[in-house]
């Protein structure tokens, strides 16, 4: 492949402007709600009780901020244009925060501080007031606002803004944001894998361009996707599985992978990898056919430039299988919450090259401890280590810096090590 093609592919993966059909992460109100969407002519996002078409987001750079507007054609999202002036006012606010003498000794919490009623607000809306106008009106009509500390004034403003003038931030779906979002919304689907743990897995397993990475991904494709992202359309991530049906890798579809990257995501059953069973010959024929049709379709694409997406997770080609059997994989990652770590590692470790690193993720410690012990006893690996990352976020504000009050207390355990070449494995 020529370098120009490669560079195009890379820029493709690293696109910073959205396009029709691209997958996006919508961050609504500063992380309060996170929604994965696909930008099409008809797609919408629901905020409060209104539906907003996503069409205006197409062609905007990732990182753009949108606010809601109620125009003649119904509710819509409009891009917020930030100017240098905004920045200055923010700076001023920060300076004010430094001197503070007010406190809440006079505050009586009897729910009478706000004189604006729900009807008043509805009335303002009907007259076409913007969300920000309503927020200002609420502040003007709050009897207690002036006496609040500037910090709690800011908090009040933010709270009202989220309700009456929600903001939508357009985010790139990357391993980082996808893992973060799943961890927040559906932690069980990714086996409670926190993003810092995922980052450690990718480091310990030495995933890099041109690697051949064997994965047992039973956490929805989170590992597969993160690995494919780091491979950038080179090497292979091979998802192996027991039995007849491969594990779901639905999360992979959230990444904006191009064909080159999708083609590098393949599957292969453990039986076929081990090379036992009569299946082999049949498989060889069918995979030959597959690769034939594959060639055709790539030619088609170049000729007619009709976009035909390559599907991630096709069966590995016989050439690849042969090469892996001959050379071994360069990394191994196992994330199988429901399979005993030792029993799976015993099966797949022989396919890993000597001196290659492996990582096993689990949300419980004991299976990893047992597995580590067995690997030691069997002299299969060195540099064995069980680690658990700890992650704490900080609020950083003038004179108000401290760790967040709430934090995730657990992000999973990982067992890492390096396979060695001992007498037993060489005779194999």
């Amino acid at each position: 492949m020529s370098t120009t093609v490669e560079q195009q592919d890379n820029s493709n993966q690293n696109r910073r402007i959205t396009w029709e059909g691209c997958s996006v992460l919508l961050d609504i109100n500063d992380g309060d709600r996170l929604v994965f969407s696909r930008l099409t002519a008809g797609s919408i996002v629901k905020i409060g009780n209104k539906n907003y078409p996503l069409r205006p987001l197409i062609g905007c750079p990732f990182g753009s901020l949108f606010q809601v507007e109620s125009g003649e054609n119904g509710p819509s999202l409009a891009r917020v244009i930030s100017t240098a002036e905004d920045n200055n006012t923010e700076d001023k606010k920060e300076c004010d925060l430094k001197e503070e003498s007010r406190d809440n000794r006079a505050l009586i919490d009897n729910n009478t501080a706000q004189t604006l009623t729900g009807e008043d607000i509805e009335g303002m809306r009907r007259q076409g007031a913007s969300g920000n106008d309503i927020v200002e009106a609420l502040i003007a009509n709050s009897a207690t606002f002036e006496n609040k500390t500037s910090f709690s004034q800011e908090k009040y403003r933010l709270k009202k803004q989220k309700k009456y003038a929600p903001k939508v931030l357009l985010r790139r779906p990357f391993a980082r944001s996808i893992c973060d979002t799943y961890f927040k919304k559906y932690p069980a689907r990714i086996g409670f894998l926190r993003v810092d743990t995922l980052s450690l897995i990718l480091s310990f397993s030495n995933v890099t361009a041109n690697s051949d990475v064997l994965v047992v991904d039973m956490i929805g494709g989170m590992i597969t996707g993160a690995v494919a992202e780091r491979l950038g359309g080179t090497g292979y991530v091979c998802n192996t599985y027991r039995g007849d049906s491969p594990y779901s890798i639905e999360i992979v579809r959230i990444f904006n992978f191009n064909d080159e990257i999708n083609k590098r995501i393949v599957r292969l059953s453990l039986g076929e990898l081990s090379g036992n069973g009569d299946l082999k010959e049949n498989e060889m024929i069918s995979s030959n056919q597959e690769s034939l049709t594959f060639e055709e379709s790539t030619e088609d694409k170049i000729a007619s430039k009709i976009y035909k997406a390559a599907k991630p997770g096709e069966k590995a080609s016989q050439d690849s299988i042969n090469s892996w059997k001959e050379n071994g994989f360069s990394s191994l990652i196992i994330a199988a919450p429901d399979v005993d770590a030792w029993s799976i590692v015993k099966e797949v470790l022989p396919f890993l090259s000597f001196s290659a690193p492996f990582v096993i993720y689990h949300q419980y410690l004991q299976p990893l401890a047992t597995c580590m012990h067995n690997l030691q006893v069997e002299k299969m690996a060195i540099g064995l280590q069980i680690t658990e990352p700890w992650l704490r976020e900080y609020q950083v504000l003038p004179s108000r810096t401290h760790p967040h009050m709430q934090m995730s207390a657990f992000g999973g355990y990982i067992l890492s090590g390096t396979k060695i070449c001992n007498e037993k494995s060489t005779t194999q």
Partner: protein
Amino acid sequence: MLPTDPTKKLSFKRHITDGDLVIVYEKHDNMKAVKVSEKSVLENRFGVFKHSDWIGKPFGCKVSSHKGGFVYLLAPTPELWTLVLSHRTQILYIADISFVIMYLELIPGCVVLESGTGSGSLTTSLARSIAPTGHVYTFDFHEQRAMAAREDFERTGLSDLVSVGVRDIQGEGFPKDLIGRADAVFLDLPQPWLAIPSAGQMLKEDGVLCSFSPCIEQVQRSSETLASNFTDIRTFEVLLRTYEVREAKMEQCQTEEGTPGARPNKRKQRVSEASHWEQDKSDSHMVMARPSGEAKGHTGYLTFARLKCVA
């Protein structure tokens, strides 16, 4: 170190050759980087190892000294390199490194800027993440240190991916020819706020900046400076806890009836208390894990921010 060169890629058939860089592994906390040279020897507490004995052996193999002591020979990875490199400065370790790379959203093809280079621990991992088509531009104001880093990258085979410049980034900012080209910028400087305006110029829109600082006062000032051109400003601390695993024989508490685990009758238990604790005849081994007694309690704060998109 990286499989960008297919002949250096790990494989069952890949053997150690003259000139290879190997990591000599004695123990998990005792490793050394050695360049294989046919006529050389390695001497350590296990005895004398002849390099010529190593040539032709697969990576990951065990080799013996003249006294029968042994070590393992491993292929270098950025993780192993971080454990063996010569410390010319305080270095970043795996937890911070991994988190930085994930949060900077580095993928093959990215352009990333770093200052200072220091001992090149992070640089090696940055190079791994952007290979084979991306590039790391790293700067250090210390000429000797920059030179030593350059030699290291030569040794580890990363020279094509990394450019080391001698430059005071706090004082002069990043070079103008990199304006608008960086996908990400990493700062490990005593006064990062001085370099932030320049870092902002280098970044593409929505590009990510990370500043590593050991002290909270540095974080405070950096965050204030970031507020003008950046958004999504977040500060984290990431640490690692390691576990010790041990197999031990555990004594079992047995009731008179000999049914371990059955709830013992209180009165009976008092009568013949002494006889209840006895070694279980059947081998009852247990694998147990506990956190290691000591750990790094602090490395530094990681502050991330995204360059605002100005429409």
